[in-house]
């Protein structure tokens, strides 16, 4: 297990102990909530991870590295923005796609851009949920204020990666 994984388990343990001492019922409810979430997530995860593996084999290595590799600069971030905007579905679809691209040679900062584009631009979500419920004026306002966010997050990630020792975030 990675160091960060241990930190998260420790944080969960500390939260459990603190809550248990303050309010046992709430602590039990928290545990039940986590278990219920796990029951819902596990079947999807069992599909998602092999899907990422198959996709990684299907995506030609040169293709991901050429279009989205760490050295592709601004063009790579723009490609990631377009690809991310059109990925439909929840995190059990998008994150395995990101994992597959990443292990086929895409750069981590480009993958930050891609996830932001999937989160913020989300063409599919705009059409199915946002426009019907909030109206196109709200959609226009949100896209006008949000179109630059994927690129900004990706470039911020590039800057952060430059500060970290190489290999901190491996593929």
């Amino acid at each position, binding site marked *: 297990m*990675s160091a*960060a*994984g241990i*930190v*998260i388990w420790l944080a969960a343990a500390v939260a459990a102990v603190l809550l248990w001492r303050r309010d046992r019922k709430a602590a039990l409810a928290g545990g039940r909530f986590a278990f219920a*979430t796990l029951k819902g*997530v596990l079947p999807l*995860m069992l599909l*998602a*991870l092999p899907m*990422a593996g198959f996709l990684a084999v299907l995506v030609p290595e040169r293709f991901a590295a050429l279009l989205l590799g760490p050295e592709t600069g601004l063009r790579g971030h723009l490609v990631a923005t377009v690809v991310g905007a059109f990925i439909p579905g*929840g*995190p*059990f679809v998008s*994150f*395995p796609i*990101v*994992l597959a691209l*990443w292990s086929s040679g895409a750069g*981590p900062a480009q*993958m*930050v851009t891609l*996830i*932001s584009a999937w*989160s*913020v631009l*989300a063409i599919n*979500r705009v059409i*199915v*949920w*946002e426009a019907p*419920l*909030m*109206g196109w*004026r*709200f959609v226009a*306002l*949100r896209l*006008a*204020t*949000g179109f630059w*966010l994927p690129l*900004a*997050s*990706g470039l*911020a*990630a590039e800057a*952060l*990666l430059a500060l970290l020792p190489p290999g*901190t*975030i491996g593929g």
Partner: protein
Amino acid sequence: MLGAALLLAGFVQAGVAKETIARWLGAESGLRGLLIATLAGAATPGGPMAAFPLVFALAAGGADRGALIAYVTAWSLNGLQRILVWEIPILGPEFAALRFVASLPLPILAGLMARRLPGSIA
């Protein structure tokens, strides 16, 4: 799920006085309002069927467009539940931390932009 979200939105609107939402998230709420909206967005679990009815309720309750944009942006970029349940297990805690930090200021910036753009919504 959608039913529950709509009920929740209804209760928010019925239970929280309009002045309260307007004071905390209204046009005069300043940077603090954007910060509150950002925290609330990151804390909102679930998909669009849960978040958008809440946005709708907040808009009807007097939240200004800067706060609404900050809320939606924070929910979509840095929803904590998605990070904990999906991103960390699939992509690893190091990548999740990199993305989280790189996206952290963006909801506030988008909210500030929304307040400065001309025109009005709902």
